């Protein structure tokens, strides 16, 4: 696992880690191209493609009009025909506009052609709440997890942003790569030399003995914050960063819960038919039942209103509360 290897690292921002991965892969493979709104000279909404336009030119780094459906469709078609497009969709809410080509075409292509065609497409999008309101804040990764043929990853650190993007750009089929508005300003250590994070491998971010907390993306930070607080109260939390949602690393979760005997699943999106429900269901299918609590958004849209937004999405306090309640059972 990345975290345990000894590698030279450099501190960089999430966005820089993404750019580094894309830059390296584009240099290695001239069939990779970046397509999306304002990815060209602007460098992406969060500067996550900074410099690529200058380095690789307008052929391989393409600004697109506001046309999410065709953007993903064109990406899927180019992928099926031998290229490796990275299509960006600014916010995950707008990904819905491209669900048809992504889900009805790209995710089914290998199956319906009996392996004859594949669509090595990466769709990068940004999830989560940060004052952007009801139609720019949603986390719908649980829907994507359920689509056969789709890979779904959601890094929480610059190192994983880097390593998972590199793996995505070498993958065989469509990958949805989800970052988060609140992660872009976060710095972290990123391997200097080329290094990949494989799909389907979770990472233990903090070792603990009393309860296992699973999370992905920005919520990993909330879990770690909660773990910090709880430690001072004598509760030891193990925090698992799922990183890859499809496939899920069930062995890692099972090993942890086997030790702690209690599971809190944490996600920023809706609990209903969410990531946590699936993690728990799969775990209990193999291990039998364990104590479990889930934490996620309240069942309401996420307003841009600072009070209502904060009330809706989970924070460290709610995670800590859930842990308390669960361990008191």
């Amino acid at each position: 696992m990345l975290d345990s290897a000894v590698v030279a690292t450099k501190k960089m921002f999430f966005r820089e880690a993404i750019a580094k991965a894309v830059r390296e892969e584009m240099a290695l493979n001239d069939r990779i191209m970046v397509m999306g709104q304002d990815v060209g000279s602007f460098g992406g909404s969060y500067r996550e493609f900074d410099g690529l336009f200058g380095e690789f030119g307008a052929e391989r780094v393409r600004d697109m009009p506001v046309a999410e459906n065709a953007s993903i469709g064109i990406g899927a078609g180019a992928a099926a025909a031998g290229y490796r497009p990275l299509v960006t969709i600014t916010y995950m809410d707008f990904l819905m506009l491209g669900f048809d080509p992504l889900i009805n075409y790209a995710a089914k292509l290998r199956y319906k052609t009996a392996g004859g065609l594949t669509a090595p497409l990466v769709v990068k999008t940004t999830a989560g709440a940060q004052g952007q309101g009801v139609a720019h804040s949603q986390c719908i990764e649980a829907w994507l997890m359920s689509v056969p043929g789709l890979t779904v990853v959601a890094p929480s650190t610059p190192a994983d942003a880097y390593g998972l993007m590199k793996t995505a750009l070498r993958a065989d089929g469509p990958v949805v790569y989800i970052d988060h508005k609140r992660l872009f300003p976060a710095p972290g250590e990123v391997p200097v030399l080329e290094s990949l994070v494989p799909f389907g491998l979770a990472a233990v971010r903090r070792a603990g003995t009393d309860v296992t907390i699973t999370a992905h993306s920005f919520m990993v930070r909330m879990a770690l914050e909660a773990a910090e607080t709880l430690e001072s109260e004598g509760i030891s939390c193990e925090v698992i960063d799922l990183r890859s949602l499809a496939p899920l690393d069930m062995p890692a979760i099972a090993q942890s819960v086997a030790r702690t005997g209690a599971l809190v699943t944490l996600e920023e999106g809706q609990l209903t038919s969410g990531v946590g429900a699936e993690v728990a269901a799969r775990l209990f299918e193999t291990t039998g039942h364990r104590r479990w609590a889930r934490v996620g958004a309240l069942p309401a849209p996420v307003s841009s209103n600072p009070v209502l937004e904060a009330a809706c999405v989970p924070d460290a306090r709610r995670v800590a509360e859930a842990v308390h309640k669960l361990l008191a059972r």
Partner: protein
Amino acid sequence: MTPNALDMLRAMARIRAFETALSERKDHGFQLLSSGEEAVAVGLASALTERDQLLTGGRSIGPAIARGVDPRAVMAELLGKTAGVNGGRAGRGHLSDPASGFFGAHAVVGGNISIAAGVALAKQMDGDGGIVAILFGDGACGAGALHETLNIAAKWKLPLLFVCNNNQWSVSTSREDALAPARLSDLGKTFGLPSRTIDGLDVEAVAAALGEAAQSVRRGEGPAFVECISIRLRSHSTTARETRKRDELAELRTRCPIRRQIARLGLDDDAVEALERDAADFAAAALAFAEASPYPSAAEVLTDVG
């Protein structure tokens, strides 16, 4: 001087002052302002009556105020306060006040166009003589929702006025780079709509052209399409990077629709000062009102969900 030329100027100046006051506060996260586009909002508002409804994309502050939504309630909304026109929960890009003829903004680019057609369908079935105007940007012209809606609106002869505020940019992407049609109004023409492209910096021209288009819609002749070519004097949002050069921006400022209308009306310094004072007062009153209003309580988070 057309009868309301001065009123329209005053309305534009008020929008400018309102947005400037707003932009100086930081507690709203960010905002999509409309400096350079006031003539479109004000000209469009002049073409609408009480019975009509206006819907817009996310860049909605100017249009809402021009339409007559209480500016105090708009400011409160944008700052997330309970006295906001939607209790502070819509915020930037989503405010609405149907009672004032502003059916609402919707921040998904292109997303409000079909909604507006639905409101127009309701108007048509109501038969009350009202029409609906939908204001969207050049960026929205790349979206399939426009095509689908144009087609259905044309077939059903909906009382819907398509108004494209072509400020020539979608964030950092120029209209030229994004869109192939020679004129964006050609998109309406294809579906048989009366379609024009006009100067969106000339508030009187906008009022005249949209007034005429609104009349044809009101007469039951079906939808019409007007492209207003305008400019965006500020960056995409108050937190977005500006991508244009200084001299380009300086040139743009010489074309400011407010300065242009002042010049056309030949206002003297006193009159300009009075105009600016009125606008500043307008903005200050809105800000004071908004500041006095509290934030909602967290307990509200689960109310009015479904």
